[in-house]
């Protein structure tokens, strides 16, 4: 009787801890590894066959076709600079300079990777659309209401993630990974 109980404890511990660890690692990613710059995080290794099993499982679960190594690197931010989760009820200012790339795009997504519906239908900005002032950093405003300058509209409510993709860049190479450059700072403004 005691033996049966012990065996059941063994299997229960194995199932709960083992599957729990898998679920957590696949939905949230590993806290280590990758390329982390401020709130931005990228996994350049995802763009090749050398990706580790954690990255592969994440790709399969999200249903994503990741950017290939020679194509680009995509960064994701789920929090602002202070570590608070991004929420559509708040205004955000992104400011800074970006590393050398042929092209960059920036847009908010739902946490699952879906498109966000806004009144204007404009989904993001890119290096082809944004206005640069000589000697000044890039400034992008995120808000539900119109802002002066480069503005991305946020949806009515809910959490969101920001995705910054740099195309044709040397950022993913091992050398560049050791001395990561600065990316856009994410500052939270007023909340409604």
């Amino acid at each position, binding site marked *: 009787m*005691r033996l049966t109980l*012990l*065996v059941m*404890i*063994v*299997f*229960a*511990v*194995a*199932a*709960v*801890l*083992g*599957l729990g*660890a*898998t679920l957590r*690692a*696949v939905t949230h990613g590993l806290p280590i590894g990758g390329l982390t710059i401020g709130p931005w995080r990228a996994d350049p290794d*995802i*763009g*090749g*066959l050398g*990706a580790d*099993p*954690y990255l*592969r*499982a994440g*790709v*399969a*679960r*999200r*249903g*994503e*076709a*990741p*950017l*290939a*190594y*020679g*194509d680009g690197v*995509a960064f*994701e931010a789920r929090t602002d600079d202070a570590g608070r989760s991004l929420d559509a009820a708040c205004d955000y200012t992104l400011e800074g300079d970006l590393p050398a790339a*042929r*092209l960059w*795009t920036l*847009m908010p*997504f739902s946490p*699952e*990777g*879906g*498109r966000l519906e806004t009144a204007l239908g404009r*989904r*993001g900005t*890119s290096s*082809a*659309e944004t206005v640069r002032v000589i000697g000044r950093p890039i400034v992008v405003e995120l808000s539900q209401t119109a802002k002066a300058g480069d503005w991305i509209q946020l949806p009515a409510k809910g959490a969101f993630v920001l*995705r910054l*993709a740099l*195309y*044709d860049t040397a950022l993913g190479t091992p050398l560049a990974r050791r001395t990561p450059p600065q990316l856009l700072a994410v500052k939270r403004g007023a909340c409604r």
Partner: protein
Amino acid sequence: MMRLFYALVVGLFLAGVVHVGSLLAIPSLAPRGPYDRLGALQADGRFVALPDDGATADLLAFSDPSFVVAACRYDLAGGPVTVRAALPSTYGAVAIHERRGAPFYALTDKAATNGTVEVVILRENDVAAAEQDETAQARPSIRIVSPSDAGFVLVRLFAQAPSARPALKTLAESATCGRSTTPTSNP
């Protein structure tokens, strides 16, 4: 008490085994991986552009909305597949992904000759045959060995403005990914 401690230690060890096993099994068990999602497009052997709106707009998660994307699923069981795509110099890329979604080859418009790129995807067993068929050609074709029989190719073209999308969509869908025609031996 000691036996409970042993049971917990064994349980922890087994938990590690379960974790590794389930993690490795996820890519093959996941029912909604990128390859399966593209099945809704009817894009087997031809390029179909991903829709901009509607229920199928989110077919691939975290798909960059500034890009026009066309997808084609290939199957090498019947022989090598040739991918031919026109890439405009505003930025275009061809990315080849294996069955589980990991990309294993990508070309951008920088590698295009006369605005197009051509890649032959083949199985490891077909490499020797393909090299034997090599005849003098205007330009050597790029041959890529796919790690899996099935997979998908994405043609991704950057749209500088929404007004550029319809034309880019036509261009992306004009890409082909048909079966390679075996070179006829002309005497």
